[in-house]
């Protein structure tokens, strides 16, 4: 029994391997981009819009609001990264309704790749917002003693991200496969429906955790800005008085 789509190899030449995970990912990417192009090609800016445009707008504005709610004020800046994480994972998980489909998220390589992206994005956004020193300073907070724990935390949460998504999706697929051999009727359908819910929830969890990590990394800058604003406001009030 194959547990991961990585094991289905189409072409291999040394280190380079074209497996089911990559092929499925490319198909998913193609569909997502094609649908986006088709819908956004006829975007209308007046009050009457198409249903598809409405759905896309709801999706984009919903993600934007979620990012804002977590604490990232400049949500548009992070929408590309976090939104793509959510859309890709959710779409990959929702496609399990197609028979014979193997979600790329049930491959540890894919989830690890996504987790590495988050692992890399967190310091990149943090440094971009606060500068290198300020970002590195967050590792020795509240005290210098916390440095190893903060580093371990950084690595472990990345690992947790990868394993959580992989475990959930892989286990869902595995359960359906096992149930198919035990009770081929009815139960697999129920499990697939459950898998759809789990898939969307996992996509949400993955992207919201990524947002929280980025928010934590960029928090210092936001705090500073708020503090500066408060001081400015106070000074202005004093001057006016």
């Amino acid at each position, binding site marked *: 029994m194959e547990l991961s789509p990585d094991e289905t190899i189409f072409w291999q030449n040394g280190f380079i*391997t074209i497996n089911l995970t*990559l092929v499925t990912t490319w198909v998913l990417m193609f569909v997502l981009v094609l649908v986006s192009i088709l819908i956004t090609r006829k975007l209308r800016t007046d009050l009457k819009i198409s249903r598809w445009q409405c759905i*896309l707008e709801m999706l984009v504005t919903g993600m934007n609001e979620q990012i804002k709610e977590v604490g990232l004020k400049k949500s548009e800046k992070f929408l590309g990264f976090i*939104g793509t994480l959510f859309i890709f994972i959710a779409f990959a998980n929702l496609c399990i309704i197609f028979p014979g489909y193997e979600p790329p998220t049930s491959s*540890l*390589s894919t989830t690890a790749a996504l987790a590495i992206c988050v692992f890399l994005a967190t310091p990149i956004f943090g440094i971009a917002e606060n500068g290198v020193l300020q970002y590195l300073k967050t590792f020795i907070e509240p005290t210098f003693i916390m440095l190893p724990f903060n580093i371990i935390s950084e690595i472990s949460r990345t690992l947790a991200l990868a394993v959580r998504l992989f475990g959930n999706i892989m286990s869902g697929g595995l359960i359906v496969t096992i149930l198919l051999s035990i009770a081929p009727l009815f139960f697999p359908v129920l499990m697939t429906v459950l898998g759809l819910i789990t898939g969307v929830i996992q996509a949400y969890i993955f992207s919201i955790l990524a947002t929280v990590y980025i928010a934590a990394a960029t928090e210092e800058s936001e705090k500073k800005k708020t503090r500066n604003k408060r001081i400015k406001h106070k000074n202005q009030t004093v001057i006016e008085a």
Partner: protein
Amino acid sequence: MKIDWFTVIAQIINFLVLMWLLKRFLYQPILSSIDERETNIKNKLLDAESQKKEAAKAKDEFNHKNEIFNKERDELMQKAAAEAKSEGDKLKENARNEANELKDRLEKAFAEDQANKNNNMAKRLKDEVLDMARKTLTDLSSVSLEGQTVEVFLKRINELQANEKAKFSEALKGGKPILVQSAFALSANQQGVIQKTISGLLKTENTYEFKTRPELINGIEILTNGYKLSWSVTDYLKSLEEDVEAGKKVEMDTNE
């Protein structure tokens, strides 16, 4: 369950490419479309607000104009009503005057008609009376009415009172001729008798002038220098006419 590092690297690249593509074809167009729509809505709201203000202004202006119009209309109505009333009064006054004039004319015409009727009646009466008298006298004594008239006139001259005679004589002193007028043509004999009677009465010689006047109605009169002596059936007829009128009046009063 192992990690294929080529797949990991490939998926990282795939994810980055997907992120760029979605940013290019999904987020940017959708966000700019939303922004544009928001701007449009904002502009439309601003437009609506300004139009609302303009509408309110136009409404106020309209109301103001309407008030002025109503005021002017009321004034014109009042003016027209006053003019109509004055015109009506004028027309009524004219109609009343015309009616009065017409009434006067009718009354006048009626009076004239009545007078004509009375005249005709008097004439008919005179003719009838004279005719009757003439016939009666002819039947009774074979004398003519004219001859009898001359007789009666002569008798009146002869029976003149002293003061009357004095007045007559006084009138003759002017030397004017005595004008004898009669309803019928006097014969030479009758003229001579009249001349003789007057000369005998006044003891004077006078010149005479005889004229025929049918309106005297079987009468004779003497005129000289303001003095007049006459006898005719007209007097009796007048008295008869007066009696008839008096009788009519009494009858009308009784009817009312």
